[in-house]
């Protein structure tokens, strides 16, 4: 999907704070219709399907130790959240 295929949002409103408001009223640091504020209503990838094995995740954690999700959960049910950032 190329950037040019997206319509610019007609709701782009810049606030005095410098933040941009989108059509849902969400405030963000960049203009709606650009970058991650585009609206891919319809198809967008959501990764492995329900019924598949969760792929291995081995990563450094905030404590500085490596965590292997499947080993760490040791037979427990688990929720794995992918989110944008802890910084912004």
């Amino acid at each position, binding site marked *: 999907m190329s950037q040019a295929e997206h319509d610019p949002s007609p709701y782009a409103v810049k606030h005095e704070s410098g933040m941009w408001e989108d*059509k849902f009223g969400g405030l963000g640091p960049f203009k709606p219709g650009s970058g991650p504020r585009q609206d891919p209503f319809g198809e967008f990838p959501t*990764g*492995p399907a329900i019924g598949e094995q969760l792929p291995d995740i081995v*990563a450094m*954690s905030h404590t500085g130790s490596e965590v292997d999700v499947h080993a760490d959960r040791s037979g427990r049910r*688990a*929720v794995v959240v992918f*989110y944008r950032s802890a910084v912004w």
Partner: protein
Amino acid sequence: MQDHIKNFADAGIAVYALSYDEPDALADYASGHGVTFPLLSDPNSEIIERFGILNTLTDPDDHPWYGIPFPGSYVVDEGGTIIDKFFESSFMLRPSADQLLRAALGEAVEQPRAERTAGASEDVTFDVSFDGQMLNAGVVRDLVVKLNVPQGFHLYGEPVPDGMVATSVEIDDQVGLVVNAPRLPPTSPLTLAGTGETLQVFDGDVEIRIPIAHMTRGVTEDDAGNLVIAVTGTIRWQSCDVHTCQLPRHEPFALSIPAARHNSPRGKDANFSEHFAKMSSRRLPANE
């Protein structure tokens, strides 16, 4: 999430959260917010790419935003199989902890309900409620439609036979309201004796969940001065027994859901500037 972590721990459910942040940025976040579950670091977005959920709406040159995933969560069972998932196209939305806990438990998490509206139409009764007490900006929660189908009757699921009406819930469009695809229960097959045709039907108690969210637009004051978001929609169904079908029904409903107008306030964490600068520069070519 941290506010709800005890509920997950009590239920024996492990929680992990992964982002493209560096471990030191996650450490500052964890200490600032008292996070006790593992925050995982994927600074080169390798895991995000391997999962196939890299947010392709950001351009590779668009530092520092490039590398984030489409936000979502996977729920896995004891064997590691994905049993549910919740994904959003907008990076501003996130599922509620209740939705994740319910999915992980595979059962209802009983919540005090904000408001409900109910009715009956011929033989089928229905009930519409909001699962939770409050709809905060950016958090996805469920509108719950329950239909009770009397014994001996069924409602149609998809695919629907010619001329019949499938069970559906439609939420009216309104500025500021985000409505995700309804989550319907599985249908069961019903083979008609006369024609041998097999239909996909619902019977008994049918619970349809429609994930909704708002980003502050659309929130208004009700007569008592409380902030609410008014949600209206229509439930459609057609009930049949093995011999005859009732006329298709469409029942409008309206709910007024308590809402918070603001986005959750988000203060800057320790060393924000350093973390953000590192994030902005880490993918730049060395000589740029």
